[in-house]
């Protein structure tokens, strides 16, 4: 089962996210903030999904950290954001893709499936 780490500070979104997928399809680790990643305390997953605005650190900073970290840098990163310009910004931080909020279920599924290998 593919492992996905989701960092999202809004609990409603956080909890809804795994429901988008079949229960036995992916193994979700859900974090409210990114310190565990920055401390290298999490196992390398198959995909990171990071919200742009989270308390503590900016999702973009975490993305940059991942992309510069030996342990994580091979893992694709998808950014989530309510900002319309997220696609550009995410690319500049090294993210592999971005999903603008609010999203549709087919869109989330499509992007996730595209990047998880």
């Amino acid at each position, binding site marked *: 089962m593919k492992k996905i780490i989701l960092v999202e500070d*809004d609990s409603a979104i956080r909890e809804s996210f795994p429901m988008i997928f079949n229960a036995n399809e992916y193994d979700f680790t859900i974090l409210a903030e990114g310190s565990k990643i920055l401390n290298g305390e999490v196992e390398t997953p198959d995909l990171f999904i990071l919200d742009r605005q989270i308390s503590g650190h900016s999702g973009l900073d975490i993305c940059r950290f991942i992309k510069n970290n030996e342990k994580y840098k091979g893992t694709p990163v998808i950014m989530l954001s*309510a900002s*319309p*310009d997220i696609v550009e910004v995410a690319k500049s931080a090294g993210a592999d893709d971005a999903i603008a909020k609010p999203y549709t279920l087919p869109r989330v599924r499509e992007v996730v499936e595209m990047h998880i290998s």
Partner: protein
Amino acid sequence: MNSSGGNGNGRSIDSSQEQVEHISADKYYSLINSINDGFCIMELIVDEQGNITNLVFREQNPLFDQYTGLGNVVGKSLKELLPHFEKYWIDIYTEVARTGKPMKIENYLQDVDRWFDISFTVIGGAPYKYVAVIFVDITGRKRLEQERALLSEISKDLIESDDMEETLEVVRRKTGEHFQVKWCAFIAPDEKYDNYKIRDWHAPDVPAIDGQFHSREFLSAEQKSRINSGEATIVNDILADTGVNSARYANLGIGAFVMVPLVRKTKWIFQLAIVDNKSRRWRADEVELLKEIAGRIWTWMEKAKAEDALRKNEEKYRSLFNSIDEGFCLFELLYDRDGRPVDYRYVEVNPAFQRQTGLTDVIGKTGRELKFDGDFFWINTYDQVYRTGKGVRFENYQVENKRWYNVYASKVESKNGHFIAAIFTDITRRKAVEDELHGNARKLERLLKLRDEFISVASHELKTPVTSMKTYAEIIEESLRNTDDKKNAEMIRRINAQIDRLTLLINHLLDNTKVSEGGMGLNFEELDVVRLLERVIADTGITATHSFVLHAQKLPLVMADHERLAQVLNNLLSNAMKYSAPDSTITVKSELGTNGVVISVRDEGLGIPEADMGKVFDRFFRVTSDNRDTYPGMGLGLYITAQIIWQHGGRIWVDSKEGTGSVFSFELPFKNQQST
């Protein structure tokens, strides 16, 4: 000299006494014959009452004949020679004979046109029988005197003149009378020298020659060239003169004339003429005198013109000075020994000065005396104006007076000091208003920025709950469809549609903020518009209540922002649906325009009232006519649509007929024409 010579009058020389007399008589004759004066001895003929009745010439010298033109008159009586001789002369002899004292008169003898100083001296003892008369020619002196008198009189007239025409009339009269001519004329040409105008003085016994004359009739080529070279035209006898158009002048009764031109810069300004009705031999001194008079008239005319212009200027300046609302002051800059400007002194101020400054009685006072030494800006600025000679406009606050002034200061050229003229207005009130306006503008700017920031944050924050609402609703819908609960699934779909609308509104709010912040930041890429069109219509078509027709022509690629262009098409399609009846047709067309790719969306809806056509792309514009249902929306959709097209370098327009429908079209420039 022998005895038989001379002008003997029956003298007998027969005694030594007589001989002595003879010698002295010889001396005497030699004297009187050689002197440069006329001389004669008159015997007085008296009646029984002792009254002089006649005079007989007893002696004369050669000059006497020359002066009087009477020939040899010895032995002849005055009555015989001049039957109508004036009583005036008898009176003189009577007086001389009565008193025995010499007498002297000045007299003009017309026949020889000369002035004489004539002295009468009795010879021998009383009762006096002989009178010696000596004629001294004083013509030259007399003429000079008269000329001087005339010139000084004319000069006086000119100086005291306050009316040019009137003065010239007086000058003409005096000149005419002096020369004893029939006319004295002032001749002035018109601008083209085609005609000239004559103003004359004339003797009472001749008609005027006033009026306008054609140059070509009166001025012969010779006379013209003489005039233009500043030479006088002198005609002694009009009928004998071939240099002028004699017949013309003769027709006017003219017999002789002298015309003196006044020439400046190769053009004659006027001519002064003395004219007689019969021939006359003009003397050189007369011509010279006329020239002198013409010269004086010219000098005076120039001066009068200059004075007149000056007076008019002065009046204009004065009335402006007194009537303007701006304060005006003339002041002198004062420098210290090292040439540093230290103070200024008021020389002149206008009435508005007091109104503008509240200061009275400043003339002659210095800035320091008025306690205006606080701010060296003023003095330094004026010094700069003086040194550069360039006028300066500035606004400055005067601390002492607590007023703002707008000042224009300029240098006044003068040899007598460093003068500056300043014209100024009190702008204290305007300044206050300006400050307030600036403050308000800044406040407004801050508020607008705050508003945009607020909208940006708010719409961002709104999206978070909307995201989870949408996710849960979609999950529920999917699950209901899986269990085939169509009724509940449809209700959830509607919730979802409303969430989408809410999302669109939030996006519009965000986009609007972006536009006011200066642009949406487009990502240009090569794009096939027709493919995008097909996709958008397909997506819309899933839920649509209308039928779509696409007329697509194969088009070249354009450079465009994929997402934004999709947004444009979505907006136009949803507008078309919003404003037209369900089941009506929406026609989308793509074609080649002259400058790019043209996409149009046609609906069969309500159309747009003509008055609103120009406003549909305005921010927050919404159609609000009474006979229409109210349509939801914030009035941002078409505004943002237009902003996106414009940012692509394209254009957007609408054709519409109320009740028939609308066509919204936009054109995107071809790839190579685009500047991104």
